[in-house]
């Protein structure tokens, strides 16, 4: 399934990176500790987090993740969106809490890394 299909099904809002809608999502990971995310994600993962610091962009870029989904409708800092635009990273927003969102992703067939 692609990032765009997931975004549509789960009602995710693009903060930036809509051009990456055709990227395939091959797995998922949920964590707010960036050191852990750097250590355990695989390329193509969709990453669910409530961490909005700009460093999330560099981590997604470094690990070649399919995209970042921020939960609880948590708006990131402006700098985070700017960086995501610069680095061509898909940044999406969900109004759902992490638990709920991960459940929906699993229902759609996305499996944990």
């Amino acid at each position: 399934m692609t990032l765009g299909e997931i975004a549509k099904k789960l009602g995710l809002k693009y903060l930036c990176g809509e051009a990456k809608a055709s990227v395939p999502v091959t797995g998922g990971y949920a964590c707010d500790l960036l050191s852990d995310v750097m250590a355990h994600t695989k390329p193509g993962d969709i990453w669910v987090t409530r961490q909005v610091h700009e460093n999330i962009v560099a981590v997604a870029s470094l690990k070649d993740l399919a995209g970042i989904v921020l939960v609880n409708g948590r708006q990131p800092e402006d700098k985070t969106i700017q960086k995501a635009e610069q680095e061509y990273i898909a940044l999406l927003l969900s109004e759902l809490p992490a638990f709920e969102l991960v459940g929906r992703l699993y229902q759609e067939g996305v499996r944990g890394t």
Partner: protein
Amino acid sequence: MLVNVLADLHVHTCLSPCGDLLMRPREIVEAAKHAQLSILGICDHNSAENVSAVQEAAGRDLLVLPGMEVTTVEEVHLLALFENLESALCLQEFVYSALEGTNNPERFGWQVVVDAQGEPVATVNKLLIGATSLTTSTVVKQIHRLNGLAIAAHVDRELYSLIGVLGFVPEDLALDALEVSTKANIDEVRNLIPDANRFPLVRSSDAHLSEDIGKGRTEFWVEHITFSELAKALGGREGRRAVVA
């Protein structure tokens, strides 16, 4: 001529909810002297209300630097150290205004303000163990506005550390040093954390019990035992330096 002195820049008092209630000024000063320290940083969680009592108890024997361990909105612990108490209290005002919640002593521990003799004079009701709504970047800037030093606490740990939470040091974050914990192996830290080679390192105890004071310490090569000499050493200026064994 430079002399080498030992510093433990991160020590809690009985004001921190997780600090031992026996972490009173006299006990802290005695333990610091026993550990042959010349400089002590008092860094309670989100507060500096016990700094003056420790300074008074220390007299001229020990340089007690006013400090604070601020919890940022990302749940990163940042140490602030200042030359004078007024600056620390300015930061405290800034931090208090961004700190929600009320402490539950039964659950998190008592937050006791004491005098130099260790007698309780007040308790702090704010939830000092909580996180402020201030970003890491904002806190570093505020510390610098007040002419203080900003140090990322215990970067070798996963929880509440800049590296654990944010993965690496944000590129424009102007830290003065990174702190490692008592037991951290410096070679391992340098291997695991590439940023550790970009900043001066200090080691401190993060003592919550008096017997831990000085177990983590940094050697400073300075001309005098003053805040400005310590700042020079961290900046590697005029031959001054900080050495972590």
